[in-house]
């Protein structure tokens, strides 16, 4: 099968073409021998021929300065896997700026086809392009890619086959030498000359008459206001839109759990299936709406072209704390999950800024913290005052951002992280466009699926193991009367294996205000934060079956929970604040630690980050709980 690699500058329409070719059916794959990802797919059956297609991050030259751009260059010059054809995608409205890449790449002997995009934008500017002449001047095949039509795509694929068949087999692929400054200048001069002789402009260009959104969105006053408004809208939509769906899922699973236990009351597998497996599954699936909505918002912003503007707007404040505007997108992704966020940090070219970004990303309130915060806040706030809960949740988001900023400020002053590479911010702001609903949905579904695949098995295993630990060993019970048969029953939680293990741990968690059951739930949260909620449910044996929703039952059970030796309540206000503090800082996510070690290429960095944040969280929460108690808050 012919391998096509799509290559081109940022925002040239490469990914739109890729989605069109593959019908958005693609997966992100690791580059051989590393953890670097790129998008790979095969052409959709509707185009007839089948080709492998690879989409690469945008580059301006073959000598890039950030890790994500290095991926593109590596896909071109990997000796084991060079592309059969490189389709260089060029924005027709920026011909002179985009052609130098193609001109340099021509020296590599990789067969090239030029795909011209943004032709609709060009005609809006009152210009047309002579693509035949362009092809003659450059010595490559040129396809006008009007993405909304099918003919150009078919024509492109036909050309791919033709160019592939006619290529010289003996030509060795070489990486062109890095051009010096005067060569770069003459490359752009050549680009300008070609642009002048191929772009035909109409007499009176009325481009300036178009309304420019940037006059609002990059306006000194309105710009920042609309930025704040956009961010508020995103985060409130995560809660408001997701809430009804989450309630529905919660009720559904609550019903299933009840059904399992009621329909098989005297079996071991009824409660096992209900409390162990189904409730465990429910604790994963309940966050799907929030995660999906967050990704929809993110990809909508990215596709529209606003994300780059956001990065520009916050560059100044972020620079004050040792970061860069380019940290904005990773930080925003961090509100969904730290793992994709850490990968997004590859676009930061400055090593020091990249490391500081990686350092503080786990402090952004990721979606796995939401269920924990949600539960504790629901427990702390009266049910008739939902606004108070909303306010606390916002406060916790700010706490994450604020503590991240403080730590970044300190880290940027540290000697170890100093380097000579000067901080830069040169970022192209793409033209605004209407996001494609299909692309947005496919992207968000993929990311959500990724979440389920990652968190699902962990949560299932922990749930099942915890269920077994809290219900075993079986004890022999003789019902009334001497002759009555001996039956086997599950142990009470207090006599279970979990209790024996957990009680040894109680001294560790008691200063935080937790008994051994809460302590086990905290320990389990190190597999994945959200496991805390399902573990609490298992450890405290929800018994109040009157309510429909699992969450309400859990809240009632928490209300009643007491220390076994003293009968004092476990979940007091101070304990709850302690838990919130602990979850704000502790790095309880093992996959994040692994990804961080990969991204920084430093196991020590990831290790110190894990220990530092977790010890701080533990000590800090003890100080908070004990301090509150001394101040008279139980």
């Amino acid at each position, binding site marked *: 099968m012919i391998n096509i690699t799509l290559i081109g500058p940022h925002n040239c329409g490469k990914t739109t073409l890729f989605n069109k070719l593959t019908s958005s059916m693609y997966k992100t794959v690791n580059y051989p021998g590393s953890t670097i990802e790129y998008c790979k797919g095969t052409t959709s059956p509707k185009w007839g021929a089948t080709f492998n297609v690879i989409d690469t991050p945008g580059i301006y030259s073959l000598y890039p300065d950030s890790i994500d751009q290095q991926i593109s260059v590596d896909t071109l010059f990997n000796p084991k896997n060079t592309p059969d054809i490189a389709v260089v995608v060029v924005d027709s*409205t920026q011909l002179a700026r985009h052609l130098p890449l193609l001109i340099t790449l021509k020296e590599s002997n990789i067969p090239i086809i030029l795909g011209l995009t943004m032709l609709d934008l060009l005609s809006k500017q009152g210009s047309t392009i002579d693509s035949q002449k362009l092809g003659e001047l450059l010595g490559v095949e040129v396809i006008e890619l009007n993405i909304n039509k099918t003919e150009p795509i078919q024509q492109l694929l036909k050309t791919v086959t033709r160019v592939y068949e006619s290529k010289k087999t003996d030509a060795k692929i070489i990486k062109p030498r890095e051009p010096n400054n005067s060569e770069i200048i003459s490359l752009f001069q050549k680009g300008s000359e070609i642009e002048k002789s191929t772009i035909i402009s109409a007499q009176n260009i009325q481009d300036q008459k178009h309304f420019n959104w940037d006059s609002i969105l990059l306006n000194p006053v309105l710009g920042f206001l609309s930025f704040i408004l956009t961010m508020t809208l995103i985060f409130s939509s995560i809660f408001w839109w997701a809430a009804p769906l989450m309630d529905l899922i919660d009720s559904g699973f609550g019903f299933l759990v009840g059904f399992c236990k009621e329909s098989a009351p005297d079996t071991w597998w009824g409660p096992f299936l209900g409390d162990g497996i189904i409730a465990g599954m429910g604790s994963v699936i309940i966050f799907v709406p929030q995660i999906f909505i967050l990704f929809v918002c993110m990809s909508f912003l990215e596709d529209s072209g606003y994300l780059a503007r956001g990065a520009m707007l916050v560059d100044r404040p972020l620079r004050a704390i040792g970061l860069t505007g380019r940290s904005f997108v990773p930080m925003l992704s961090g509100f969904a999950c730290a793992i994709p966020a850490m990968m997004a940090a590859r676009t930061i070219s400055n090593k020091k800024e990249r490391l500081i970004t990686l350092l503080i990303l786990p402090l952004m309130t990721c979606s796995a913290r939401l269920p924990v915060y949600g539960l504790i806040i629901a427990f702390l706030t009266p049910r008739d005052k939902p606004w108070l809960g909303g306010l606390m949740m916002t406060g916790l988001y700010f706490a994450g951002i604020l503590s991240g900023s403080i730590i970044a400020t300190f880290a940027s002053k540290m000697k170890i992280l100093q380097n000579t590479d000067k901080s830069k911010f040169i970022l192209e702001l793409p033209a605004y466009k209407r996001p494609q609903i299909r692309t947005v949905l496919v992207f968000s579904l993929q990311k959500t699926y990724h979440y389920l695949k990652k968190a699902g098995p962990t949560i299932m295993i922990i749930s099942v193991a915890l269920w077994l630990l809290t219900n075993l060993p079986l004890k022999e019970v003789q019902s009334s009367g001497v002759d009555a048969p001996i039956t086997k029953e599950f142990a009470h939680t207090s006599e279970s294996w979990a209790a024996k293990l957990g009680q040894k741990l109680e001294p560790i968690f008691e200063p935080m205000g937790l008994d051994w059951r809460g302590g086990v739930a905290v320990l389990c949260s190190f597999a994945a934060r959200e496991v805390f909620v399902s573990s609490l449910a298992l450890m405290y044996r929800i018994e109040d079956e009157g309510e429909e929703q699992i969450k309400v039952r859990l809240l009632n059970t928490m209300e009643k929970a007491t220390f076994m030796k003293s009968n004092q309540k476990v979940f007091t206000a101070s304990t709850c604040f302690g838990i919130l503090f602990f979850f704000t800082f502790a790095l309880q996510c093992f996959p994040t630690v692994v990804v961080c070690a990969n991204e920084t290429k430093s196991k020590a960095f990831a290790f110190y980050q894990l220990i530092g944040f977790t010890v701080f969280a533990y000590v800090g929460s003890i100080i908070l709980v004990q301090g509150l108690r001394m101040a008279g808050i139980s």
Partner: protein
Amino acid sequence: MDNIIKTAHDLNRGETSTISNVIGSKNMIVSLLKQGLTPGTLIEKKFSGTFGDPVAYSARGALIALRNEEAQCLQI
């Protein structure tokens, strides 16, 4: 002498000029040149955002955000 040579940073909003020279560290020059900000290129100061830094400039049909420090490397 320094204040006689103007840079892209000194442009007023909506004002256009031609880049005459690109100065700065080796790394900075390459980064700016790669973006097509070469001598002879027309550059217009477009939008200054809230903090007045970075500022969006238009050149060769693209809108590019540059920090003031970087814009000061583009002599006009």
